[in-house]
């Protein structure tokens, strides 16, 4: 606070980057509400490899129990010796389960899972930085990582051990285990989430009985994220796992899976932090469409429903996803959605934000999309023409104007006659639109008058109809609706 530069004092705002730079990389302890008394000092046990094979199993168990002791990593000076012993022991355990065969006897499973649960399952601490911006801020790192990392490593090697038997392990790696594992995906530490991703993937692969449960719980996490908290750090990682799960779905798709697509994946697009997981999300969506092309129409309509109205960055992402979908679309499906889709694209092309307009115009560089457009030029050109024509004259950004000219040229070459017709009727069309708008305004204005008159009428007469009749005689509504008829025709 002492040294304040003059420039800083002038506007009182420090630039975000400056503030960030001052902040140190933080680490955070897990929120262990421990009833456990202060850690007992650990004493080193003999090395497993030096023990006679008859005693190895017993020693393995002892070491697992030793690793259940938890330490406070916030305090970097206490228990240094014990912390080091635990680290070395964990390393040894990792090594032991990954290189030796026959060490996973049935009696070891509860000890192993107990050690894992004690170490990794914890309540995540409150976020230090409530307006954490994952794109700009440094994540808060887990303070006890030196130990936790090894425990994750151990869990992974345990699951990947050739002797590993899911039929025994399922007694310990059960629904409750999975639930707690899933909660950890909210960790701010990307290293932890990365481990969790691999581990959950292995569990999904090995425990057939847990698959439906895992999918359902991921659903719940996403739904809570979308509709309740808008906060969950592990969305991208979970989507990545789902991407490969969707890949393995059998055909025809079960309705449960379709529901997941429409009720969870599509609404996920509404998230504020979409940019953090959009790539993974789009991948999942495209996977679904490759499995079952008949889902194209509901997906596109879903995206159009949630199309961003104010956030240009998100709009660019949506356009990217639409292009990915168009890349794999079947021509028959394309026909079903071309009208609503190109109405939206026509709005994007005319967007004052040049990145949005540019992204939409890039569609015309895509050979496959061009071929689809050409095939349906009679439908698409009338939708696109108005925006393109106007933008070619009005857009502030010269790059966009140049792109629009190219697009107009391409479209003209596709159907020259239609293009000429549209050009000559452009002015008349605009005027008709304007007139229509005026008439709508008037219509509502008159309807409003009717309401005011009617309020008094209704008070005298519980059936509103005579009110309308009266007014019709007076002419207001009659004239008005006559005009409405003209608009319709």
């Amino acid at each position, binding site marked *: 606070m002492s040294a304040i530069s003059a420039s800083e004092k002038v506007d009182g705002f420090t630039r975000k980057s400056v503030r960030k730079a001052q902040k140190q990389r933080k680490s955070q302890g897990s929120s262990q509400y421990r009833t456990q008394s202060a850690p007992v000092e650990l004493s080193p046990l003999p090395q497993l490899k030096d023990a006679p094979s008859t005693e190895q199993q017993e020693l393995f168990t002892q070491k697992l129990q030793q690793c259940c002791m938890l330490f406070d990593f916030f305090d970097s000076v206490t228990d240094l010796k014990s912390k080091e012993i635990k680290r070395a022991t964990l390393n040894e355990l990792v090594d032991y389960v990954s290189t030796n065969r026959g060490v996973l006897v049935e009696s070891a499973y509860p000890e192993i899972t107990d050690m894992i649960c004690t170490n990794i399952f914890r309540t995540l601490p409150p976020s230090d930085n409530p307006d954490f911006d994952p794109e700009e801020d440094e994540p808060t790192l887990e303070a006890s990582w030196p130990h936790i990392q090894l425990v994750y490593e151990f869990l992974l090697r345990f699951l990947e051990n050739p002797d590993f038997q899911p039929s025994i392990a399922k007694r310990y790696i059960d629904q409750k285990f999975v639930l707690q594992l899933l909660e950890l995906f909210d960790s701010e530490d990307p290293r932890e989430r990365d481990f969790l991703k691999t581990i959950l993937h292995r569990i999904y692969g090995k425990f057939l009985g847990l698959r439906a449960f895992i999918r359902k719980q991921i659903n719940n996490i996403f*739904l809570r994220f979308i*509709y309740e908290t808008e906060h969950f750090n592990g969305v991208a990682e979970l989507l990545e796992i789902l991407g490969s799960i969707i890949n393995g779905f059998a055909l025809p798709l079960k309705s449960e899976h379709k529901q997941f697509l429409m009720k969870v994946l599509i609404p996920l697009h509404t998230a504020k932090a979409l940019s953090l997981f959009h790539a993974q999300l789009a991948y999942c969506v495209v996977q679904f469409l490759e499995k079952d092309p008949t889902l194209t129409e509901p997906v596109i309509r879903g995206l159009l429903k949630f199309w961003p109205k104010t956030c240009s960055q998100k709009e660019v992402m949506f356009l990217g996803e639409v292009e990915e979908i168009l890349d794999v679309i079947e021509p028959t499906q394309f026909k079903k959605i071309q009208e609503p889709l190109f109405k939206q694209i026509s709005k994007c092309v005319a967007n004052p934000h040049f990145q949005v307009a540019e992204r939409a115009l890039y569609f015309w560089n895509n050979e496959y999309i061009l071929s689809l457009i050409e095939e349906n030029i009679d439908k698409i050109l009338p939708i696109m023409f108005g925006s393109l024509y106007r933008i070619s004259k009005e857009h502030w950004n010269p790059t966009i104007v140049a792109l629009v000219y190219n697009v107009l040229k391409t479209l003209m070459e596709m159907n020259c006659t239609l293009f000429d017709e549209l050009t000559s009727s452009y002015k008349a069309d605009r005027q008709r639109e304007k007139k229509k708008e005026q008439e709508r305004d008037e219509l509502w204005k008159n309807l409003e008058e009717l309401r005011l008159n009617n309020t008094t009428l209704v008070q005298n007469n519980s059936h509103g109809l005579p009110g309308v009749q009266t007014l019709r005689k007076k002419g207001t*509504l009659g004239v008005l609706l006559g005009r409405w008829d003209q608009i319709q025709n």
Partner: protein
Amino acid sequence: MAGADGDDSLYPIAVLIDELRNEDVQLRLNSIKKLSTIALALGVERTRTELLPFLTDTIYDEDEVLLALAEQLGNFTMLVGGPEYVHCLLPPLESLATVEETVVRDKAVESLRKISQEHSPVDLEVHFEPLVKRLASGDWFTSRTSACGLFSVCYPRVSSTVKAEIRQHFRTLCSDDTPMVRRAAASKLGEFAKVLELDYVKSDIISLFTALASDEQDSVRLLAVEACVSIATLLPQEDLETLVMPTLRQAAEDKSWRVRYMVADKFSELQKAVGPEITKNDLVPAFQNLLKDCEAEVRAAAANKVKEFCENLPEDSREQIIMTHILPCVKELVSDTNQHVKSALASVIMGLSTILGKDNTIEHLLPLFLAQLKDECPEVRLNIISNLDCVNEVIGIRQLSQSLLPAIVELAEDAKWRVRLAIIEYMPLLAGQLGVEFFDEKLNTLCMAWLIDHVYAIREAATCNLMKLVEKFGAEWAQNTIVPKVLGMANDPNYLHRMTTLFCINALSEACGQDITTKQMLPVVLKMSNDQVANVRFNVAKSLQKIGPVLDSNALQAEVKPVLEKLATDTDMDVKYFAQEAISVLALA
């Protein structure tokens, strides 16, 4: 188009339908917001037979439109023909209550709750309650979530068999397998308990409460804490110990900080609900633990409640509990590592002085106040200063003034303008408590320095501050201490400072009265009309308009009018505009 060639009177619905189908969301939204207009035009019968079925069928739209629809339908009773027909509104609202978007669903439930009151008891059983049942057994979680909010509104008005069914449905939802529904049920648990007969509260609600409070998800458990307040209020004192306390104790020591946070946050309500005896035996140690919690969030929430908790302690043992149990924890919090904890404490700690009285305050609290006044975090200092009035009543502010001054000066020069702004806002309060002498001697220079701050918001606040000071200390004081300095700035080379003079005059003229305004301020304003900066000139016009009402008509005609007329012919269009405006407002034309 429906009926275009038939009955003429069908038109309005055709209009609406077409507007509702418009491609432009905004237009769809506009028409749905005017739904009542259409309904009026249609009359009650056709609203029931044509409009509502149409609305029920078209519920696939942008959430924005659905939200407007859900809201409208809550006020539609008269438009469908009064309470006797209100059940016609149920089908569209039922569909809206199953929508994914929470905002829409909540609004639909709100509207349903509203119109439930307009149902006759018979209609409630025939139409409303079946809807609640359908929602409660819906496939998708959204409808079950909505159902949770509807039980309590129909329960009191239905027969005992239906009541039993409703209780059964609620029980089922409390153990639903999606956490979203359990959360909804937990959040309505307290509300539902309130409408239940006491026997059922004991037999049904308590077991649900216990189950939800030990749910595997902390987001469910923490909602049970909220329900705990209502439930404890309903039960007779002798049952609390066995029925509620085991769960509450467990919640206060939950392994998730979110649950403990909730306990801390609801502590005062809990304290009132369980009464003085349990407070003494259970809540005091629990509160101590929360004040020492390992998570700063929890400590801050508890620190916020310190004053309220102490205030509500039973009078006979209040002082002893505070001195032996609470104060030691508070002392530790003063030097907490987390600034949110310290500032939460600082915002309430002063309130303890009224509870503890003069001697204890001087001996025990004063050192804490002084320590917080020197805290490195400006928010802590600000919170102490903003609550000075509590201490003033008990021990008088003089005790603090020696430490207060450096703290104020430092805040007044803080690099962050928001901090400076905050301290300015307390100046009138401080001035009132410290008295005019102390103020003139120590604080006046600060107040004047803010007038030339680099940040406009500070200059503006400083201007407003001067006005409040004049209101406090009177016109004579203003004339001697403030006005000369303010007017002196009119000759400053920086036009922003010259404008500040005008802003001050705007603010002060009324408080200073006609005499000072006419004799001292007006000449300066008039002279500034020749300023070379147009912004100053049009502010002269604005100032004249502002101080005009304080002046007498003589001054207005003889001095103000010619100057405004001259400004009205200025080369700058803004100056012209404001001069003309002033002329017309002051009726000088």
